[in-house]
């Protein structure tokens, strides 16, 4: 699965929210992308440093409240152009064939027998089903925001696809084993 491009997300947050300091960007990130891994402060400042070096953001000043000085950042024209380019580019559909799920069944069939592969598929199906239930419960909760729902939809759709594959592969596994060993 492709990693989320943190630099582009930060450029987008600066474009939508104007001048902000690192802490505000981190908070906005975690709020808008609630299912992503929360950004570490170190990562925010390291990314901002690189974006500044590349001329995509500029420092706008120092905010001094109680505590240390906080540098605020603003988007440059070059940053805006980079962001627009990223938003226009279509992402390559992910091929998925390199999935660990797939590799594991293949190897299980090579080194063990059908029962071993089947047992693994059943255990994996169980884990996937459990996770699907958790995400569905989170999505159906009255407190879920649309941000949550859309993010959960994405995760649920992918888990659902994996589960369908696990079901189908369970039905195929005996034939597959025969083919692997002839």
């Amino acid at each position, binding site marked *: 699965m492709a990693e989320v491009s943190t630099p582009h997300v930060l450029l987008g947050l600066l474009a939508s929210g104007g001048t902000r300091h690192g802490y505000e960007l981190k908070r906005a990130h975690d709020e808008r992308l609630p299912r992503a891994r929360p950004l570490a402060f170190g990562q925010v400042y390291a990314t901002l440093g690189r974006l500044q070096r590349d001329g995509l953001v500029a420092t706008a000043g120092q905010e001094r409240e109680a505590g240390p000085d906080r540098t605020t950042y603003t988007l440059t024209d070059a940053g805006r152009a980079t962001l627009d380019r990223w938003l226009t580019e279509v992402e390559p559909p992910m091929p998925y064939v390199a999935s660990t799920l797939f590799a594991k069944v293949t190897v299980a069939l090579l080194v063990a027998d059908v029962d071993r592969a089947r047992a693994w598929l*059943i*255990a994996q*199906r*169980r884990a996937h*089903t*459990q996770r*699907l*239930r*958790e*995400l*569905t*419960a*989170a999505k*159906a909760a*009255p407190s879920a925001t649309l941000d949550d729902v859309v993010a959960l939809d994405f995760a*649920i759709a992918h888990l*659902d696809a994996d*589960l*369908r594959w696990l*079901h189908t592969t369970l*039905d195929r596994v005996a034939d597959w084993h025969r083919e692997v060993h002839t």
Partner: protein
Amino acid sequence: MTQLQARGVVKAYGPTPALRGITLDVDAGEIIAVTGPSGCGKSTLLHCLAGILRPDAGEVTWHGHRIDTWSEAARSRLRRTEFGVLFQFGQLVAELTAAENVALPLLLAGTGRREARTAALTWLERFGVAELADVRPGEMSGGQQQRCATARALVTEPRVLFADEPTGALDTLTGEQVLTQLVRLAREQGTSVVLVTHEPRIAAYADREVVLRDGLVDQSGLGLDSPLLGERR
């Protein structure tokens, strides 16, 4: 507490076996998904549990009373008072308006006309289709019809709702809205739900999943209790 039980239920259509000895408990207030590939016996099991079909062998009990030996009239009465049934295509009565359709189970159970209409309007409102009260099914979208059918299935506040692929004919978003509301309202009023589906994503709304394969319960490890939804009463 278990309220509905199947014990060794067998059912065949001519020479073709559909159920080959199913044992299943439905507890009060729990939501069970019955899943499995096409032809595995899901719908037949639902029909046997709901007293629509009589098993060839085995027992179906409701609060300890065998209902599979009851007359059609007695089972029909049970369905009217304690059960709600919902199919893939709402099967609304074409000649009746939405409100009349939803009020129908109450009228059949002896509720007065005015009271039945008031309840029908409340349930249409809960499914977001109050404005369709005086519209006939022919003038509604599939999603609107299924919302009305779901309201009709729940209007008697049944103890068990049997839902056979209730979102199968709907697009993903509409199906999800109908199902979310169905599950929420069923939980609120403590209605058990037996949800037949072949889709993992739909089954994930249930507290647990029973997988059928060739007319038997598949014992291979999917009888999961949900970590979050599993407030089994």
